[in-house]
């Protein structure tokens, strides 16, 4: 049993506001959507055919308990499209941002002059509004007056406008996602690099260690806790991709005009299901549960792998 010491009381008191808010806005919604995902024909209003013993939990009415919400998700072609898109986004953006972030951080750490200037430059995207950044990307890749098309003399080629292919739109989306996510990763890696004892590098230098070996055998292992942290949070972030798509294609659309579900993501799918009038709320909940399980599984796998590779 935990002992309730005098100091514990102060600690709990200090934590209370956060815990209360977390309980209200994080823990309860998680439990609630878990429950809701199993409630069939759930509605916040309307008359129940029968009072169910667990009705009070969800705060609404429903017809029965079962897996029909999940079946509905799995039968929806949009879900499979969203799953495919999200997987591609994860697989493309996570490795590139982590590796690119690491390389840029190492490069930044290596320069002597103007270091803080370049650090500021690379950190700017982080403090820039993501929607504004999306607008910039939108105009850069615009089919008529976009910078890219002008540069490569391909005016009229649709990247994100009507007629764009999946590949081209995904390219723009990934470029945007990587650019947007890079700054924070660089910052974390840079602070990690600066905490590595310089003597390791001097020792490596005295032993005539080639650069790539210094990077792979010394920097990467010593930075591995940070790399794990960044990889896991990047995976989670990429699986939850939503606002990036909206930022590129505009409110309510996940693709170019005429094909507005082309790059729909899982979160986008869930969000859509919430607003579809014929759709019970349970379907969106079921979608969230599926996303939750995917993220949890992948995180667990990563922790398992990291046991051998991460050196604390």
């Amino acid at each position, binding site marked *: 049993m935990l002992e309730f010491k005098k100091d514990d009381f102060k600690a709990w008191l200090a934590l209370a506001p956060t815990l209360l808010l977390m309980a209200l806005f994080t823990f309860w919604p998680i439990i609630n959507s878990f429950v809701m995902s199993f409630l069939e024909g759930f509605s916040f209003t309307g008359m129940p055919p029968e009072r169910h013993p667990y009705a009070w939990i969800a705060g609404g009415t429903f017809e029965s308990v079962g897996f029909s919400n999940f079946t509905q998700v799995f039968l929806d072609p949009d879900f499979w499209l969203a799953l495919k898109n999200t997987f591609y986004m994860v697989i493309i953006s996570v490795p590139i941002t982590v590796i690119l972030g690491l390389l840029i951080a190492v490069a930044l750490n290596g320069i002597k002059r103007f270091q803080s200037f370049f650090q500021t430059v690379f950190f700017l995207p982080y403090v820039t509004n993501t929607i504004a950044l999306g607008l910039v990307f939108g105009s850069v890749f615009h089919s008529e007056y976009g910078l890219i098309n002008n540069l490569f003399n391909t005016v009229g080629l649709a990247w994100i406008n009507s007629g764009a292919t999946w590949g081209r739109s995904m390219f723009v989306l990934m470029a945007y996602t990587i650019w947007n996510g890079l700054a924070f990763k660089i910052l974390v890696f840079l602070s990690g690099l600066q905490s590595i*004892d310089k003597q*390791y590098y*001097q020792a490596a230098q*005295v*032993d*005539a*260690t*080639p650069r790539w*070996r210094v990077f792979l055998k010394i920097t990467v292992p*010593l930075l591995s806790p940070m790399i794990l942290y960044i990889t896991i949070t990047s995976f989670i972030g990429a699986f939850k991709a939503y606002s990036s798509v909206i930022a590129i294609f505009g409110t309510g659309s996940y693709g170019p005009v005429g094909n507005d579900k082309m790059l729909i993501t899982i979160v986008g799918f869930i969000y859509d299901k919430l607003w579809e009038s014929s759709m019970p709320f349970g379907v969106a909940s079921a979608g969230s549960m599926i996303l939750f399980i995917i993220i949890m599984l992948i995180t667990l796998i990563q922790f398992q792998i990291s046991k051998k590779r991460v050196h604390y």
Partner: protein
Amino acid sequence: MEKEKINFTDETNSNPSKKIELKSIEVRLQNLTKEFVDKAGKVTIAVNDFSVVIPAGKLIGLLGPSGCGKSTTLYLIAGLHKPNAGRIFFGEDDVTNTPPEQRGIGLVFQNYALYPHMTVRQNIMFPLENMKIPKQEARERAMEMAELVHIGELMDRKPNQLSGGQQQRVAIARALVKKPRVLLLDEPLSNLDARLRLQTREEIKRIQRETGITTIFVTHDQEEAMSISDEIVVMNYGLKQQMDKPQSVYEEPVNHFVAKFLGNPPINTYDAKIKNGQLVIQDNSVVEKGFDYEDQEVVMGLRPEYLRISQNGKIPAVIDFIEHIGRDTMIICDIPETDQRLRAIVPSDKELKVGQLVKFNYSKLFVFNKETGERLR
């Protein structure tokens, strides 16, 4: 099994049954100067016109208080710092502009800098892998080096599973495994507790003797330097003060600083004057004659063990404190009418009391100029 092995360093034999002998070379530093400029533009001269010849195959201690430039000198020899002026020679090679990786040095850092994510074996093999030495040979060489420093059974541990002394040995093995021309040790004993220190310094001496490598180590601990060095170099303010065998430096210091820096308990200093060729102390009594110098203020240096209590002693003092240290007794005395004190080591059989007036004679006396510290006698 392949019997022949590739020798990467011409002089050495990689047959593990033979003793590991390394090539000994002389290290010469000529007028070495290193200045550091801080952000405000303030210049600090860490090493000042420093010249020294380190004989081949010797263990040399660079000794001095913190900030005296001894570590900077070591890093200059290693090539991790670039000198502003002067030259460095390894044997006949001028290595002044040679990058550290091409100098053929083994460097043991103060906190060892063992890679924490690698095992002892991987740490020791690391320099060999950089030299692209075949894995099998690298493993053998790592093992024979580990056995030389007596850590053969710890090869699969990680550094954080080792004691400080064991880590030190791993660091030495890693430095020696590539058969360097010079071994450099930065404060090798400062991270160890007192008992390990004693053991490790003998160990360093043994390893150095067995391999015959020219070894330079840095320390601020005079006892450490004196106990294992073939010769010591005393530094202060970036300047070489004296270089000689430890005992010679102790017995014949060239100046006040060296005399004060060596010896524990420290040397007694006692203000005096030279007047008409005579050495005169506070109460105007003449201590010594025959000083062929102008009249000047001087400092007398008397090592505690040089002092004897004697009926016709020349220096009167009042016992303030008596400390029994086994065989001997240490007494601390006030010199009347001054604020100066004397520390003396006397045989325990003497009956002494606090407050008693005693007179000291001495077996040896140093006299230094008070301002320059230069030794007059």
